[in-house]
């Protein structure tokens, strides 16, 4: 195995190493460029604004400036409700329900 690996052409080895990253970059679709979020407003002191911009960029989601306020309003509701659930104390042993059965 070691010999085989040594014989692999450098360029091919480099491509093999890079494969997972290449696949990740191809998401969502070949030829689709990750959207570069535009700054929707003047610099904001609310960290959620920066989070939304960063998350959109990382997830390759388009986020036009006029969408920002509605996305933010929805995310605020999501985070408020998620925090309400998360603050409910349960033991470390409590199991999630990834495959739900009634």
């Amino acid at each position, binding site marked *: 195995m070691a010999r085989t690996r040594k014989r692999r052409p450098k360029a091919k080895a480099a491509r093999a190493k890079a494969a997972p990253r290449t696949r990740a970059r191809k998401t969502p679709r070949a030829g689709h460029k990750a959207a570069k979020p535009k700054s929707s407003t003047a610099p904001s002191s609310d960290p959620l604004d920066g*989070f939304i911009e960063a998350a959109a960029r990382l997830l390759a*989601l388009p986020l036009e400036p006029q*969408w920002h306020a509605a996305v933010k309003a929805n995310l605020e*509701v*999501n985070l408020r*409700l*998620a925090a309400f659930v998360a603050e409910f104390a349960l033991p470390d042993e409590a199991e999630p329900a990834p495959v739900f059965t009634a």
Partner: protein
Amino acid sequence: MAIDPTTASAAEIARAVNDGALSAVEVIEQALLTIRMRDPVLNCFTAVTAQRAGARARAIDQDRSNNKRLGPLAGVPFAVKNLFDVEGLATLAGSKINRTRAPATRDAALIERLESAGAILVGALNMGEYAYDFTGENIHAGPSRNPHDVSRMTGGSSGGSGGAVAGRLVPLALASDTNGSIRVPASLCGLFGLKPTYGRLTRARTFPFVASLDHLGPLARTTEDLALAYDAMQGPDPEDPACAIRPTEPVAPLLGRGIEGLTIAVAGGYFRAGAGPEAFVAVDRVAAALGANQDIEIPEAARARAAAYVITATEGAALHLDRLRTQAHDFDSAVRDRLIAGAMVPAALVAKAQIFRRWYRARVLELFERVDAILAPATPCTAPAIGQTTFWLDGKELPVRANLGIYTQPISFIGLPVVAVPIGLAPLPIGVQIIAAPWREDVALRIAYALERMGIAVAPTPPT
């Protein structure tokens, strides 16, 4: 003609076709005529499968003339929310984006099962985009309209299903319910709706929304019709990984057993706050008729609703992530912005919601050691006006689209079976949920049937 197929129940139509008092062709011709006359106003149908329905009706009549035994739903016209695959049609799921999908090559499993029982598909129905909706409005196809007042919402996301049955276009429709999308239109349109136990009815060949919350079920104007349809659709299906490997348990023969021996309680706490008075009037009327004078607390229902909301937002976002990246402008903006926000929720918080879900399920199942059924409002109010974006609940102004399901979400969150029954308040109807333990659809349906026989739960006739 012995009965009027436009006002008759599915059971009455099937009996008349079985007896030869009515031909399936007569039923279907009348149904198609009614759709042509009323749907331009109600806007429930997105496709009418007239040719297919006619062929199927002729085949049923031929079977009868050949003395073949007909099914329990022989000649019954029905329609399906347009997230069900219908052979030859693109499965829209209420979207513009899906219009470019290839036509389905095979019907959804539940359509096949209903047609095996003799029912006849007449079309596909309007719905909220990708089922992320409680209003029944659709920016691409226009809103479905409530037959009791066409300026008002049908409720969603199965708005076309609610409007088509309440408007007497069909006696039976299929719908989906992720967070309340069968029970909300049942409530606003004055219908009986069955959301079975999670995993009871196969979802094969339907467009999903939130896999761990998606249910399918029927809407009808009588309990008997719900039971007949439900019985025809039960049974395992390896093509839906969530569908339970469980034999068929027919409920129609059990309806007449009544409520004797059943312990029925009224949900308190969360379910007695945050609604208009009509919601509580309806629950109290049902409770009084059933002699249900025991209140019961469903623990942490508000948190359950919150967890369902978060899981919906995130699983829904995962489903549509690629479409958001490439076709964001083709979504309804209200749906798009919710989905984008859902994609941004940290995974750790979603895992917390799933952990809570199992805890909550265990606590609620303990309640069913003491009671057989629990009553709760189906919606916090009667049908809002089309276009209305907010309403006031408990002194707070809240978005209609996200909050019509505040009483349905904590129940479907753990997959419990529910029958929504209509209470004919003036000027508009409203629904009450009858909630039972998992796999006890029979209990909820028996109670609904008893209420119907008492004249308490009746699908009101809309103005013509």
